[in-house]
Each structure stands twice: as C-alpha cells, then as structure tokens.
C-alpha cells in the first residue's frame, strides 16, 4: 500500500490522474458495451476512491448507476504471519452481489501482484463473477505472480530501490503520484 510521499519527483499530477481515470472508464465501457451487469470493487485503501471516481465517470457517460463497492483483503494476504496484525477495513459488496457480474477490481498501484491474488481469493468467498478484470492507476512492474492489469492508467517503469507514492484528494488532500528514491535500499 502506498504511503503519502513527501519528496521525490511528481510523475502524475491531478490533471494526469483525471485523464487516466477518464480513459480507464471509457475502456471499461468499451469492453462491456453497457454497464448493466458491471460491478466495480475498489481495493482498500486508495483503490476505493478510485473505483468511485471511475463509477461516477461511467454513470455520467451512460446515464445510470453503476454498482460500486469496496474489498478488504487483509485476511487473505499470504504475508499475514510476517507483519503485526491490523484491523481489516470495511468490505462493501453492492446489494446485487457479484455472482454472474462483470467485476472490475480497482487498485492504485500494481506491484508484486500479491494484493490482487489475495483479492481473487476473497472474491471466491463472496460469489462467482462471470468475468473479473483489473484496473490500476499505476503499473510499476516487478511482478512476483502471473498477474496483469486489463486497464492501466500509467505504466511506470521503476527500480526496486524506488517507491511509488500515490496520494489522493479523498485520503490525503491532494492528487499526485511521485517516485521516491529509498535511501540505502537494496535492488
């Protein structure tokens, strides 16, 4: 999960983020023709406001509401035993459920792929979507699992010694993506 960055260089500003989300929204619509059976699920923490923004854009384009929820994957992570426990965030599955739906998982930064793996496990406990797709604002590479995103706001090749710091208006008061060099980080 990206923490608020305080230094480093800005690679996406508010307008870049807005444009990327608009493009992702249109891509999702193009892939699904109508948004009737579409469910967007944001991954906590910053995937949730991103999913809401995408839903709002699709609603504006289509003229009807898009089911949008939030998914917490804490309990499904494979690194639970290597960190202190933390309280899970609130998972919200839209009233219609997810079975038989076209489900788009939305996250901020795609990195190792382990969060998405955990999310796929979590989804299996809530129902059986017809299709699951993945939309991310930033893909920074360094995958550890065979997972790729269907919709990417920005491909951002990074070194392992760098960190992608993403901040959003809803959670941090500003929209921006920065690349921060970690001091003393080993590649």
């Amino acid at each position, binding site marked *: 999960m990206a923490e608020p960055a305080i230094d480093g260089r800005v690679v996406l500003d508010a307008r870049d983020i807005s444009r990327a989300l608009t493009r992702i929204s249109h891509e999702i619509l193009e892939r699904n023709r109508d948004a009737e059976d579409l469910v967007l699920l944001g991954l906590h923490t910053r995937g949730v406001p991103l999913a809401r923004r995408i839903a709002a854009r699709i609603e504006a384009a289509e003229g009807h509401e898009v089911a949008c929820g939030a998914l*917490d994957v804490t*309990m*499904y992570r494979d690194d*639970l*035993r*290597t*960190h*202190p*426990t933390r*309280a*899970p*965030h*609130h*998972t919200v599955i839209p009233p219609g459920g997810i079975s038989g739906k076209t489900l788009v998982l939305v996250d901020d930064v795609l990195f190792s792929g382990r969060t998405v793996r955990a999310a796929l*496990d979590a989804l*299996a*406990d*809530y*129902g059986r979507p017809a299709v699951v797709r993945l939309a991310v604002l930033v893909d920074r590479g360094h995958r550890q699992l065979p997972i790729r995103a269907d919709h990417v706001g920005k491909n951002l090749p990074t070194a392992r010694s760098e960190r992608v710091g993403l901040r959003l208006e809803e959670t941090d008061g500003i929209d921006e993506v920065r690349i921060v060099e970690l001091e003393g980080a080993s590649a």
Partner: protein
Amino acid sequence: MTRHLLSIDDVSADDIAKLFATAAEMHDVQKREVKKLPALRGRTVINLFFEDSTRTRSSFEIAGKWLSADVINLSAKGSSASKGESLRDTVLTVTAMGVDGLVMRHSASGAAHQVAGWLDIPVVNAGDGMHEHPTQALLDCYTLQRQLGGPGSLEGKRIAIVGDLTHSRVFRSNVKALGKLGASVVAVAPPTLMPAGIAEWAKADGFATSYDLDAVLPEVDAVMMLRVQRERMSGGYFPTSREYTVGYGLTRPRLGLLRDGAPILHPGPMNRGLEISPEAADAASSRILDQVSAGVAIRMSVLYHLLAGEESA
C-alpha cells in the same frame, strides 16, 4: 495487543477499539454464504475446558473454524485431568502436540495466568473461577456500543450490573471494560451477594453500588443482568428464590421502570423466572441473542489478533 488475553487489564482502550473494529468485519462474515476466512489456516487452537460450558466453548470453536484454524475441544471430564493429572502436566501435554493457541476455562481464579507462564503460545482466558471472563466483557461492551450508536457511544453512559456480584467474573471484567470505554457502572445486588471489600474497590475503580434496583433502573442507559450461580453457592445467600426475584429480578413490572429501548443484557444461561422474567428476556429491547452472535465475532477478532500476526510474537 499483549501476547495473551487473560484479563481486561491486558487491553487498552485503543486495543479494545481495534478489537471491535475487527469484530465488526467478522460480524459481516456471519451473513455470508461462505462463512470462512483464511487468516488462521494451518494453525491449531485447543479449547481446554475444565468447567462445563456450552456457549463459550462453541462460540470459540465456531470462531476458530470460521478463521480456518483447526480446533480441538477437550473437557476435563473424561480426560486425563480426571485421572489425577496435574494442571501443569495436562496443559503441557496437550500443547506439546503442536498447538498454536490455547483457550482455557478453569474453576480456579488465576488458573489462566498460571498456565500462560508455562507456555510460549498465546493463552485466552475463557473464564477463571470468580476472577475474569474478558471475552464476555468485550462482547457485552461491543453489543452495547453497537446498540447505543457505534464507536464512542459508551462514553458518559450509565450501566447497571445486577445480581450475583460475589461469584461473577463477568461483573469483574465488565466493570473494567466499561470503565475503559468511558461508561459509569452502578453495581446492584443484595448485601449478601456484594463482594467483600467492594466499597474500597468501587472507590478505586470509580463505580457505584446500590441495594435498590427500583431506584437504579430509571436512571440507567442499559442493564446487564447476571446469572444467579447456584452451583457456586453453598446456601444462605438469600432466603428463597422468590425473595430474590422480588428484590432483584428483572420482573415485568420493573421493565416499565427502564427508559424506552434501554438494552437488556444477560450473559446466559438464564434462569427464567429467577433473575430475569420471560417478558424481559424476550422484550424487544433484549439484546441477549445479539450477545451470542457478537460473541463469535469478538472471539474471531481476539483469535485473529493474537494468532495471525508475526510468527515470532
């Protein structure tokens, strides 16, 4: 969070808030078709009950299973403990089988503390004699908090705890937990069921005491009835059951003294007609069944926070 949960002293107000937040998510699992989370997959929890229990033991069992742990139940009856084996040998033997967590109930106050000192795995006290029952207090407070308006809603509230205070570990744990969440407690019991030295204790822990239930009921935001523990009484605490009910039972007429909608709690099992009337137990404001379902959520939360994290913990 501390390593073990032996007493409410082990958790701060912040810890309780964290446990409640997690419990709220666990509560949602109960509504799901697949009631299972993988957080404790591959872990083994043993429920070691030296004293009879239905709801606490099954609640811990369901909690462990819904978190995907392997749960083993052992009761002292019919086990080697009934053949004269010492507590230490019994506990060391069962935990030597690769167990990751121990949930224990014992009739001796302090038994869980003692056992925790012998083991390097987390121990949860599921009731020790007349000492403490921390998960019951947590689930009571969690139920009340949800009922009274969510996080922070116990602040400034006045809660009556009524009944057999002398023998009640639920009372001892609840006084501490409610205090940590900002509620004030008034403990109501006949003089014979007030613990010795309660005046100094009440002063130190900041709660009030009363012998007059009728005077207390109109001024409280919720009432917790306690079970009259006949099995712990050697007699002489009150002349007859009828007399106890007249003085301290939550009878139908007394229901009218409570503020509208004030939640009624009881840790169970209930002696209907003794400490609580059927009308009170089944009243719309009775939260007794909510306590039971909250019990699973709270125990899931406790097991998760004690067992899921860092392996070196």
